[in-house]
């Protein structure tokens, strides 16, 4: 365990690592991210470990667990190095074949390769998989290579080199200047220029603090989680460089309690960095001192808002505070504080290593660098995607995302979480940057991207977000507390078929008031999902109101189920799942649904093999 007392010792240690680590040595990295773990990665890892041992290859092959590789849909995922052979949907039973291939000139195991659905061709290397081919993984590239629990792995891929460079050749003004010139904007939602924020803070007297916001409250987003789980040192390194630039001696990471693995990996990373002399007193012999504490969030969406988050760290109720004063003036313990998102911090070492100009060369005029999205919902290739700013939605959905499953039609893309908005399929050629998204009525937010097809009801989605926000409003101010409640009630009424046309005007008026008068951004942006769906999907609202129909066949009060007599084969599968005992019929005979008893759960449709259960919208037809 070395304690590195200078930048030279850091570089010498790195040289030592590459000397003892054989780059050609076979290494199997298995994704142990949350997605792959849920898909059974632990079993695969242990089968591989045993297989390697049994084959007597223990001294010749490394088996490692890593963080999320992004393509969670296809988990468990693994890569065999140094070739970079990409395997997906691996089962413990495949371990034998994989081990055999290692001892056998690395002929890939055919059945585990990814098959390109377009060409039907098996793809061998990760970068040839269409999901990865269009990406630019500046922050996430190392996730599939390193063991997040081992600091030496991070050092081997160039970790802490940026810190060394900063400490040995830069002063704090130069660091802030680089961040400014890179054009980096905060990845937590609002897109505020990071360099400017740091500059403002530095102008205020010490002691100052810095915070990494890893609350990730947006439902449907998990990139911060994956970065902390998969490469915690990259975030820490960014924070240490930030501490140098800002003259800060104490920093905090505020992580959701729902992310236990992220907390664990982060704590391990902090401990290792302290042992190596990269954190704590006299960092790399430079005299700089910096400590990091982990604070676990306690489950309140509003605590992602920076003033609320700081109160929560102070052990108080997480209620947002009016501003000014801004956190850079008066933040944690009333001291000047910089708060940045996980990805913002992780971008800092990249900028120091490769230079502001390089970073600024990626992206559009005003949105620089790469953006990480979680691509989820009704899309074939769900997972985490890192792309240069300025990519179009079409490239995201069709080239990277592989299109919509089941041959259905794309309807909308919800971007930016509850404060974002729904972009209709007609705007598919929109380029993704902060300004373009705002113009379309949505926003970048933290990068949640939920794809919706024609079986998603936009009124229901609006109601869903409002229910969420009503729940999560801290309740301090009237327009937000009452506005979210009223909006949710109106939307629920429309979903139930009891809406009136005046309701739409009322929703717009309520939205306007909330935007103008709420205290924090939760309240000022709460109406976005409603306003964007009203703007782009008004017809769907009107269908609910005027015709008592839900075109997507989602809203329970407006749909009914029936069984097509020509398709029903009397298997009785539906009877077994029916929650309302609403299905009549003897085995092998035609089955029918008693709509008076049906709870409209839709389970019968889920299980019916011959697809005989049909769902319709409108009034239930009278039985003959």
């Amino acid at each position, binding site marked *: 365990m070395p304690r590195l007392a200078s930048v030279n010792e850091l570089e010498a240690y790195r040289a030592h690592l590459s000397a003892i680590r054989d780059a050609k040595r076979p290494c199997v990295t298995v994704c142990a991210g949350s997605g792959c773990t849920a898909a059974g990665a632990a079993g695969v890892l242990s089968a591989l470990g045993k297989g390697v041992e049994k084959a007597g290859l223990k001294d010749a092959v490394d088996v490692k667990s890593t963080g999320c590789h992004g393509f969670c849909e296809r988990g468990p995922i693994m890569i065999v190095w140094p070739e970079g052979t990409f395997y997906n949907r691996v089962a413990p039973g495949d371990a034998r074949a994989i081990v055999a291939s290692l001892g056998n000139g690395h002929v890939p195991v055919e059945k585990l390769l990814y098959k390109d659905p377009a060409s039907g061709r098996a793809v061998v290397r990760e970068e040839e998989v269409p999901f990865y081919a269009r990406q630019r993984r500046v922050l996430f590239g190392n996730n599939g290579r390193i063991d997040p629990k081992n600091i030496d792995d991070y050092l081997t891929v160039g970790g802490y080199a940026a810190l060394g460079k900063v400490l040995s050749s830069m002063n704090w003004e130069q660091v802030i200047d680089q961040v400014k010139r890179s054009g980096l904007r905060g990845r937590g939602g609002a897109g505020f220029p990071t360099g400017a924020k740091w500059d403002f803070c530095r102008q205020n007297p010490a002691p100052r603090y810095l915070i990494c916001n890893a609350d990730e409250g947006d439902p449907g987003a998990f990139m911060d989680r994956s970065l902390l789980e998969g490469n915690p040192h990259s975030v820490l390194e960014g924070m240490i460089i930030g501490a140098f630039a800002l003259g800060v001696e104490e920093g905090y990471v505020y992580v959701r309690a729902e992310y236990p693995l992220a907390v664990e990996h982060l704590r391990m990373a902090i401990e290792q960095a302290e042992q190596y002399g990269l954190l704590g007193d006299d960092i790399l012999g430079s005299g700089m001192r910096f400590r990091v504490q982990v604070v676990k969030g306690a*489950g309140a969406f509003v605590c992602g808002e920076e003033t609320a988050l700081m109160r929560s760290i102070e*052990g108080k109720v*997480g209620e947002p505070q009016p501003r000014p004063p801004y956190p850079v003036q008066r933040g944690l313990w009333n001291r000047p504080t910089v708060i940045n998102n996980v990805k913002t911090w992780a971008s800092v070492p990249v900028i120091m290593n490769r230079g502001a100009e390089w970073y600024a060369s990626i992206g559009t005029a005003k949105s620089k660098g790469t953006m990480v999205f979680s691509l989820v919902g009704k899309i074939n290739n769900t997972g985490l995607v890192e792309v240069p700013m300025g990519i179009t939605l079409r490239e995201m959905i069709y080239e990277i995302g592989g299109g919509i499953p089941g041959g259905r039609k794309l309807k909308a893309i919800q971007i930016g979480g509850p404060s974002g908005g729904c972009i209709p399929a007609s705007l598919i050629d929109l380029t993704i940057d902060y300004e373009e998204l705002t113009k379309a009525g949505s926003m970048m937010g933290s990068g949640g991207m939920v794809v*919706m097809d024609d079986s998603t009801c936009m009124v229901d989605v609006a109601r869903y977000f409002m229910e969420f926000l009503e729940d999560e409003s801290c309740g301090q101010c009237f327009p937000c507390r009452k506005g979210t409640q009223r909006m949710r009630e109106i939307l629920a009424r429309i979903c139930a078929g009891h809406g009136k046309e005046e309701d739409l005007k009322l929703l717009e008026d309520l939205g306007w008031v909330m935007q103008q008068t709420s205290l924090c951004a939760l309240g000022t942006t709460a109406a976005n999902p409603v306003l964007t769906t009203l703007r782009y999907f008004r017809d769907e609202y009107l269908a609910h109101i005027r015709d008592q129909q839900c075109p997507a066949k989602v809203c329970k009060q407006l749909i009914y189920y029936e069984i097509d007599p020509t398709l029903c084969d009397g298997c009785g599968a539906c009877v077994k799942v029916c929650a309302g005992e609403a299905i009549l019929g003897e085995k092998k005979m035609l089955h029918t649904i008693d709509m008076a008893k049906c709870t409209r759960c839709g389970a019968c449709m889920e299980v019916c093999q011959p697809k005989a259960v049909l769902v319709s919208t409108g009034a239930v037809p009278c039985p003959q």
Partner: protein
Amino acid sequence: MEEEPVEEIESLLEQFDSRRANLIAILQEIQSKYFYLPHPALERVARKLKVPLTDVYHIATFYRCFSLTPRGRHQIQVCLGTACHVRGAPRVLDRILTILKLAEAGTTADREFTVLTVRCIGCCGLAPVVRVDANTHPHLTQAKVRGLLNKYRKPERAQEETAAETTGEVDATVGVG
């Protein structure tokens, strides 16, 4: 009410110094130990940190991860995040509640299960997902729910339940992650 484990709370409190900033972390420790916040424990916390008991209760009711009532042996977290919502999570939740004979999220009469709704557990790629204790179950459908619950029930109970049901259910095998 169960006997309160006073000693254990004292030793737990000793791990923290008496700064107000530790309040939430202390409550989290108590919650993760007993799955709820027993009143006597809150009184001790208030005394130790020298904060009014009302403040402690304010915190305990503001944050989602705390509960003032005891929770069941198994915690079922049903994700209702956006990705899970559009892929059918509300129906999965309904089915879980129906089978457990609960009108809404909460604890079953036999304290076997507590159903909680959560907003995203960060496995959105596998939506809809349900977490039972520490295991995440991906790609749930209504038909898989009974099989999943039976995995966690005491074996006798599971049998009784299935026998008592006139309408048994297609048993789905669900991987425990």
